Each structure stands twice: as C-alpha cells, then as structure tokens.
C-alpha cells in the first residue's frame, strides 16, 4: 500500500464509520476498507463527522467478556461499554496485531464512533498499553526493575524487539547504555497475569 493509498483508506474508514452512524446501520464485521494502522489514520486532516453525532468516543477499562467481535468493557470508574471491532479497526497489543490476540482480563483504550445501539464502533484499540514515567532501579539480563510512583514494576526486555532512546537520540536496539538511577519513560504492554510490563520502548533523558 502506498502512503497516498494509506491516507485515502484512513479517511475512507472514518467516513465509513460516520455513514454507518448516520444511516443507523449495524456494522457486522468485514468491510472493504481493510485494517490500517492508527498512525495512518491521522496522517491527513480528518473529515468532520456529522455534527448531529459526537466527534468520537473513547472507552477505557478491563475486558470482561468477548462476544465475537464485541468486547464488553468495565471502566475503571464502574461504567460499562461495548466496543465493536471491524476489519477496519487497528489493534495494538505490544505491536500491531489482530483481534485474536485480545483476551478477557486485558486492559483497553479504544477510540471510535458511538452507534445507535450504544456500542462504540472502534477505529483503533490499544490493549494493555502503558506509558510510564519511571526510574531504573535495577538491570538484569532480560528484565529491568523500575519504580513508578510508589510501586515497583518488572519490565521484560526482549533483545531485538525492545528499543531505547538516549537523550533524545534516534531509537536503537542497544540497551547497554541504560543505567540505574536514570529517569526513563517506558512505553510497553502490561501483562495481567503477573503485573509485569513488556518494554517496547524506553527513553532516558539527561
């Protein structure tokens, strides 16, 4: 897919979701648009949605049940929501992936369009994503010991997959310059099973 095609698809996907809302139709799964990543969805100015409808909706919480392409979500403040996935939904869980990677118990952020039936038709879903300001407390072979607020967190490091940025420089797979005591921004994927975090990117400053 070329960049131009990507932009066209991104705009088309949002128009598709808008038309679905305006028309009162129900998304049943497959679209002809195909999945694209969330970066591409913002590569160009977005068309305005119908002013009769909210511009977009946001859902946050834990996935309590998966019914086909619908995710039941319990929000952290006790609210409940249903997130409808389509073939046009971009999904991230440590990396761009598919709906098959989503599990009950996962944490979720989703962005989409509110539907007449109360569900949110998602154009992007981020599963277990975290972005934390931490301090490096320990460095092991395949893990980092991090403090985040008053909590200790284990960061799982994967050679060749985990990238680092030092003092604003470009990302590198070389993690040898990490030092105990450094402030570090960690973007990664939380593991509900053991409360650790798979580190995707770690940025250390001065």
């Amino acid at each position: 897919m070329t960049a131009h095609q990507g932009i066209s698809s991104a705009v088309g996907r949002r128009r598709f979701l808008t038309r679905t809302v305006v028309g009162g139709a129900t998304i049943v799964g497959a679209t002809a648009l195909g999945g694209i990543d969330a970066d591409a969805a913002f590569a160009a100015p977005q068309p305005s949605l119908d002013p009769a409808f909210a511009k977009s909706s946001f859902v946050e919480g834990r996935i309590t049940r998966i019914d086909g392409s619908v995710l039941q979500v319990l929000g952290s403040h006790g609210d409940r929501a249903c997130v409808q996935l389509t073939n046009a939904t971009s999904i991230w869980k440590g990396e761009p992936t598919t709906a098959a990677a989503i599990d009950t118990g996962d944490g979720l952020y989703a962005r989409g369009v509110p539907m007449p039936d109360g569900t949110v038709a998602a154009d992007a879903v981020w599963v277990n994503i975290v972005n934390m300001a931490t301090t490096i407390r320990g460095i092991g072979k395949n893990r980092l010991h991090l403090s985040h607020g008053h909590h200790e967190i284990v960061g799982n490091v994967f050679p060749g997959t985990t990238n680092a940025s030092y003092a604003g420089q470009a990302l590198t797979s070389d993690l040898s310059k990490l030092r105990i005591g450094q402030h570090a921004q960690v973007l990664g994927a939380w593991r509900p099973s053991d409360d650790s975090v798979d580190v995707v990117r770690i940025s250390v400053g001065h």
Partner: protein
Amino acid sequence: MACGTTSLWAGETSWFCCGNAWGPCSSAGGGACGTCRSASYHGAWPNASQACWDITRPDLCGENIPRRGCGSVMNVRHQCSGATVCITITDCGPRTKSWCGEATCCNGACRTNRVLDLTPAAFSAIGNLSSGMLPVYIYE
C-alpha cells in the same frame, strides 16, 4: 471556559494515565489537581503551580512556560494532521528538564522539548497512543 485560538506554546506532548485505572496505572490517583481521569480530555502542564515548576523546570531546556493552573483550558493541535482536542489542565507534568533537546517530527518539521502530557483520551483524539509522542501547537 472555551478553548481559544491564541497561540500559547509549541512542543512535544506525551501521554500518561490518571484516576482509577488498570495495570500499573492503578496507583496514579487524580493528579495534582485531584480530578484527573484517563478517559477525559485532560492534560498536565509543567507550570501548573510553583511547586510543579520546581519539579519540571522547563526553563532548564529554555522553555519559560507561563503559569496555567488547574482548570485552565487549552486547544492542542497536531502539527501535521491538524487534528485538535480541547483539554482541561488537571495535573502537573511532564518533567521537561529530563528530556531537554528531545525532538518529535512529522513531515520534516520538528517540535522540541516535552511541554505537555495528555490523558489517553486526549492523546488518542489527535494521534496514536503507540507513538508515545506527538509534535503539537497549543492554543488558549
């Protein structure tokens, strides 16, 4: 108070979680203003108070960011896509001094220094959470 169009600042924005939350964010709390929520269009400003400034010290990166306290509203626009979101300041951050000189670019144009943190709801309204950073213009 509505979001305005008067230019206030420009730079990088990251994102953070606050309020009740899952995973490592569960301990985040309501932020410096006590009202921050990940699912709301909220943000953290490096000069939300003197105590905040003493922690973030954007001046050490050459950013003499003006004071805007809890409840201030700002319009945040992605430098390249033009996507915008109106936010309310509910926390202090980011720790600008830790990343002096860091730049985030799009279409060959870069914004330097972390001057804003957005909640996941706000950040995802104008960009991709997995990017971690966005170059933005800030208006009030």
